[in-house]
């Protein structure tokens, strides 16, 4: 397989912040300033109390200025806190926006093969919850950690400047408080994970029940479903309760440690005040300052534990970003067109399980070819190779004389109109779904394509016509409507090559005829490949390939093949019986 390594190498958390580091630094700088003002508050109290005690205080000379100073300090602190909040939000959201974009572009550029082995749910989870973990780290954790670091960096010198002994006493329990929080939240994450899983299981039971509501009723299995839900519901509840039980030992112990620390400051301060080693003002200064520092410090254990998850999340994200993307060859000057020639082509998805086996054929420009065969014959795989969803390594495919592997993928795909077996529609309006291959299509063109696919009538019946939103939040289309809409959007593209992969299975016979007619009207203008089960479809083709076990076992026109003993003749016999009956009835009718 030809693959290209991703345009950007995987990132570390640090590398992600590139481009926003200035803003981050500014946020941290203003935070430090704000902090400084907050840490000055205890000095005001210290001075005021000491003056009140020694009798030098006056209402206008001491109290009012002190109060004004107090409010001013808080306002300054508030102002800088605001700036810090604003800038760090801008920085972190910009980082995450870039990460999301990179992931999205990368997901679109990954080869189809990647999605064969990786589950959608897992990739989406990495793109949503893991990105959210990184976001929380960027927006909150970095700032929290910086805040506590600054608080200690600025606060501790202030603390020690007043009294060394009291300083040590004031922070004596800090290591325990921090360590305890860190240890606990590591444990809690394990429980969180279990709770998440239980919630996921519950959601699955619920979703299956709701989407299968008809089956549940028709089989009278409501009681069994209630029983199933009861189990999942109870498990989720019990695990959540486990989480609360764990938290119910963390918070009280942590709170107790804090009150122990504050009590120690208060009591030993009282003792030193009594011995005259410090003033009452200094005593209250220590008590107030410790309060200011201790609550954020308590959070740090938790924050560090949370931040630890960010590296794990980033690793999971990098596993996606590190996957090689599809190769991009230079764009050809001319649009891709011409004869399709396949020589000795073999292919397997997994080594050892051959899906296509030494296939050779050619399709002339403008020709219509039908492919029939049982499930697993390799029909769809062949189509995937033609539009370079997968790359072949054995044999050759050329279009217009150029080896397919050497033509730019986008150029190849632009020349093809593909209707998949199980067509995917975006949950947008009907119109938006139609123009995905041709964003500047005229209204006339859109309507004509819809008419050709016999879906225009249905669309007009919708209340909002072409603006009707389809999918879960709008109108749910039937299988046949989906197929026809997918055909319409492929036709709208006016492709050089049109592929219909079993795209008429869910439409009724009259509609099928209608669509086949439209296709026939375009005969000669485009090369058409039809995969089908119904003979009414295959009979339209210039040539028919019968595939089985990765080989083309029969090839020829309809009238040739029904004369030869083989699978196609057998199909013809089964369906022919019906025709015969109709003819008999007709003969009888006309005889009357």
């Amino acid at each position, binding site marked *: 397989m030809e693959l290209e390594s991703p345009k950007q190498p995987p990132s570390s958390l640090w590398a992600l912040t590139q481009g926003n580091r200035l803003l981050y630094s500014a946020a941290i700088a203003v935070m430090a300033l704000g902090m400084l003002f907050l840490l000055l508050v205890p000095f005001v109290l210290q001075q005021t109390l000491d003056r009140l*005690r020694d009798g030098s205080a006056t209402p206008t000379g001491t109290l009012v200025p002190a109060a004004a100073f107090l409010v001013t300090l808080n306002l300054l602190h508030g102002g800088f806190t605001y700036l810090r909040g*604003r800038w760090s939000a*801008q920085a972190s*959201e910009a980082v995450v926006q870039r990460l999301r974009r990179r992931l*999205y572009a990368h997901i679109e550029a990954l080869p189809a093969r990647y999605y064969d082995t990786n589950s*959608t749910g897992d990739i989406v989870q990495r793109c949503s919850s893991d990105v959210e973990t990184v976001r929380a780290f960027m927006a909150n954790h970095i700032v929290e950690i910086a805040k506590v670091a600054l608080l200690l960096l600025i606060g501790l010198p202030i603390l020690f400047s007043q009294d060394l002994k009291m300083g040590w006493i004031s922070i004596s329990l800090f290591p325990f408080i921090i360590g305890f929080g860190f240890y606990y939240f590591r444990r809690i994450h394990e429980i969180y994970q279990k709770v998440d899983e239980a919630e996921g299981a519950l959601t699955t039971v619920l979703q*299956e029940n709701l989407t299968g509501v008809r089956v549940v009723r028709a089989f009278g*299995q409501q009681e069994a479903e209630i029983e199933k839900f009861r189990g999942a519901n*109870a498990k989720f509840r019990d695990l959540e309760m486990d989480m*609360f039980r764990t938290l119910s030992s963390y918070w009280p112990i942590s709170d107790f440690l804090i009150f122990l620390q504050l009590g120690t400051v208060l009591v030993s301060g009282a003792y030193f005040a009594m011995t005259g080693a410090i003033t009452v003002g200094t005593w209250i200064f220590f008590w107030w300052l410790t309060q200011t520092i201790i609550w954020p410090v308590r959070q740090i254990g938790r924050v560090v534990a949370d931040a630890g998850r960010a590296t794990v999340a980033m690793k999971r994200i990098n596993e996606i970003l590190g996957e090689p993307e599809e190769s991009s060859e230079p764009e050809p000057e001319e649009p891709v067109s011409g004869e399709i020639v396949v020589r000795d082509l073999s292919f397997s998805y997994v080594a050892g399980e051959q899906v296509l086996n030494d296939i050779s054929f050619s399709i002339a420009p403008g020709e219509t070819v039908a492919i029939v065969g049982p499930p697993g014959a390799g029909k769809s795989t062949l189509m995937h190779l033609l539009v370079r969803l997968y790359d072949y390594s054995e044999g050759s495919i050329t279009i217009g004389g150029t080896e397919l592997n050497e033509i730019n993928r986008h150029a190849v795909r632009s020349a093809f109109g593909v209707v998949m077996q199980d067509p995917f529609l975006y949950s947008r309006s009907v119109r938006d779904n139609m123009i995905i291959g041709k964003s500047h299509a005229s209204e006339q063109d859109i309507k004509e394509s819809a008419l050709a696919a016999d879906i225009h009538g249905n669309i007009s019946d919708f209340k909002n016509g072409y603006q009707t939103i389809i999918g879960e939040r709008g109108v749910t289309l039937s299988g046949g409507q989906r197929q026809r809409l997918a055909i319409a959007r492929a036709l709208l593209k006016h492709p050089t090559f049109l592929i219909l992969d079993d795209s008429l299975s869910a439409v009724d016979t009259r509609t099928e005829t209608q669509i086949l007619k439209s296709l026939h009207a375009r005969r000669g203008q485009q090369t058409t490949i039809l995969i089908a089960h119904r003979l009414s479809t295959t009979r339209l083709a210039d040539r028919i390939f019968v595939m089985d076990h990765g080989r083309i076992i029969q090839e020829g026109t309809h009238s040739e093949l029904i004369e030869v003993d083989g699978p196609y003749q057998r199909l013809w016999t089964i369906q022919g019986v019906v025709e015969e009956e109709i003819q008999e009835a007709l003969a009888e009718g006309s005889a009357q």
Partner: protein
Amino acid sequence: MTSGWIDDDDLKEKKLDLRLWKSLLKYTLHYRQTSLLFLLVAFSAAGADLGFPIITGALISEIDRDISQVNIAWYAGAYMTLAIVLSVSICGFILCAGRIRTNVSHDIRRDAFEQLQRLSFSFFDKRPTGWLMARLTSDCQRLSVILAWGVMDLIWGSTLMIGISLVMLWYNWRVAIAVLAVVPVLFAVSMLFKKWILRTSRLVRRTNSRITGVYNEAIMGVRTTKTFVREEDNLKDFDRLTSEMYEHSVRNAVLSAVYLPIVLSLGSVAIASALVMGGNQVLASTLAIGEMVMFMYYAQMFFTPAQEISAWFAELQMAQASAERVLSLIESVPDIQDSDEVKQRLQTLGHDGHPDRLGVIEFRDVGFRYGDGPQIIQRFNLTVQPGETIALVGATGGGKSTVVNLLCRFYEPTSGEILIDGVDYRQRSLSWLQSNLGIVLQQPHLFSGTIADNIRYGRPESTEEEVIEAATLAGAHSFISEMNSGYDSQVGEGGTQLSLGQRQLISFARAVLKRPRLLVMDEATSSIDTETEKVIQESLARILQNRTSFVIAHRLSTIRSADRILVISQGEILEQGSHAELLKLRGDYYKLYTDQSIRDIDRIDSISLSDDDSADELNSPSPRTEKDHASLSPTVRERK
């Protein structure tokens, strides 16, 4: 993992409707002991909180007054006691709230789920799966958080605030009033900001769930994106969404960044008032210095509960929509349920009072419309003998599925009645009808689990042999046995590991295993290749013997063996009869099928004979079709 469905309702603030919350509060009060204990710890926590400033103030005052007389050990002891009481209270607090929170959300979810099993399809028609999921996940979670933590914080917070106010007033009413003057402002500011913050955070969540949806779509539709070369356009759309996300997130963060400094500044105003007013009294010797510190301590303490309470009030208003939706789900009455009479008979007799036999089915003047939509069928009359196979044909939207839905009592007639054995089926129990019903749908729903689990769905007690037999009859045995784990293969969520055709076969086997007396097949074999379908046809003939069945299909080979074929258009039976009879009739049935086959043959003729472009002819209904009935195509003639 909760569903990301967020309604516009969630962004609006609604008037508080106490009735709603009262009926929800029943869920909390159901846990009476826990609720009582919870009250107790809320009071003791508030009490301990209240005690710290008093002790601190008293200690300072005493030291201020006379250093030599202070009994530090006593204060240390009192302080430790308070710390222990508070810690134990917090522990109890979390346990009680946790217990109520998890149980209430469990109970609401349970009630809602059980209700969903009873509600009729008309309810589901109007509500997408994602919407319902959000009710049972995020709404339940949100309401239970309010009903546990919200109630708790309300009790603890108001107790603490009242306590602080009383203590302050008791010590010195002048200083107390100076401090309390800030409180109304604080409440007003908090309510306002909390609402804004909640609203923007909901916008963030909504945009976030859209982004997740777009990632999901990018992966599910990756082949479509690639084949239509949509990468750049999709990325542009995605960029718009993430820019929106950036806007909302930053706005949300900025609102918080404004709110917090305002609250802190208001707090400093209260502390400053305590300082000035208290300091003056200290100078006048009417207040001890420790008491002044106590007032400042209280002024600071006041702000946490005040913020919490206003936050909860804001949340209460914003959660009004959730409460309405969840209650309307739990309290809604199913359109279709057993009548009181039937319920009573079920209780006294153990069955619905009618013989357990599926006899003649009769539609008598049945009319139906979905809600207040257009009339789908009108005065529909049909009598089906036991064991008869009825095929319904006609263009999509003609009412075929409606007839079948009415028959299964997924909906009830809006006029007229459906009789089974001469009894209106509304006189019988739903479970009786369901136990006699087997149904195969075009979009077969499989449950995650193994293939065997799915086949067994209608009769969990059936043996392995029975499962294999049913699969064989349904033509599914051969592909199942080719799979690595055979019948124990996982089908994946929604059956995604299997192709549509394979899923149809399994759901067919599931219906066969149930051995229903009434079998309904709604385009059940559309994605199955002709050879497999032939196999099914043969076993179907055996299965359908002595069973009443309704078959909706497009393929002629599927319907032609039915005892009676009904051609349905616009809710009416246009024609009925056997395949041969209907063909002879030369009416709509004839057109439906000959249209296709004859014109096809004509076209093939013109292609293979003249090889010119016959587009014109194909686009206008060929006049030759009618004329040339007698002159059959060479291929068919040869076959004859």
